[in-house]
């Protein structure tokens, strides 16, 4: 299975959710600010990389975990991926893995959105990054719940 964590820029909520899933961030309590800032993709992808799939690691079952920024077109991108995969699966002797897409954007609070905009769009990293990382710590319980929901039942997240 390929597991894709998706958000607006592919650099804040999706990165943190993927890190929770991969065990890089704690499941009890909130992480420290330094732990968030040390994540390799956190607040580092810019607009030019929106749409690119970034490999973030393998989970304990050997599944590929990726991060995807989709701008404001998340649902259209999911439709596109589902349509292409469905077509590819129709081909004889073609083995296409299952793909699960977890939309993290609804879990982004106002501080994450404003901080992300200041840091990534306007380029004021020194101002935006502390705001977005504090926002992420605020949204952390919701992101943890999303990851746990996916782990307990991946079916609703699979592209069909």
């Amino acid at each position, binding site marked *: 299975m*390929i597991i894709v964590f998706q958000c607006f820029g592919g650099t804040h909520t999706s990165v943190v959710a993927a890190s929770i899933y991969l065990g890089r961030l704690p499941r009890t309590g909130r992480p420290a600010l330094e732990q968030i800032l040390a994540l390799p993709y956190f607040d580092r992808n810019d607009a030019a990389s929106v*749409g*690119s*799939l970034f490999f973030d690691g393998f989970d304990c079952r050997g599944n590929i975990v990726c991060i*995807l920024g989709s*701008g404001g077109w998340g649902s*259209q991108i999911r439709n*596109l991926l589902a349509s*292409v995969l469905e077509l590819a699966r129709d081909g004889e*002797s073609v083995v296409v893995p299952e793909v699960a897409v977890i939309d993290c954007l609804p879990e982004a609070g106002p501080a994450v959105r404003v901080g992300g905009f200041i840091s990534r769009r306007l380029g004021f990293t020194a101002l935006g990054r502390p705001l977005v990382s504090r926002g992420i710590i605020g949204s952390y319980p919701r992101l943890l719940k999303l990851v746990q929901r996916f782990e307990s039942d991946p079916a609703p997240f699979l592209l069909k």
Partner: protein
Amino acid sequence: MIIIVYCSRGSVFPALLAAISHCSPGLSPGRAWEEAKTWAGANLTTEGEPFVFKPYAQTSPGEIICILKVAFPLPLLKRTLQGLDGLIGNSCSLLPALCRFPCMAGRWRRGWGAGPGKACQREIAALVDRTLLQVELIKRQ
């Protein structure tokens, strides 16, 4: 298996004309336009749909041509399809062909009622030629 995806933004017609040109290289522009209108009438409910993905033809066993119309920027689409291509393995290749022509700017405003202009026809022919070359390369690999 190769999936060739002709993509355009805002209107299905550039992608459709490229797909027609790919499948029937000798077709005159007028006939291609008629065929595009007929195909769109038969396969699309309304031109206003923001997202359209339809298989158009199978040119050879294991080679499918698709039409894709999206509302979001084509570079974003290309990056996503290339990323997906890298993940789904060697048994299937995705080849995005983007209809991104400067000469279309006027068509966007005037609509596609009169069919593509000469500049657009040239761009479509060049896109199809480039796509065919890439298909050749993928087959050799």
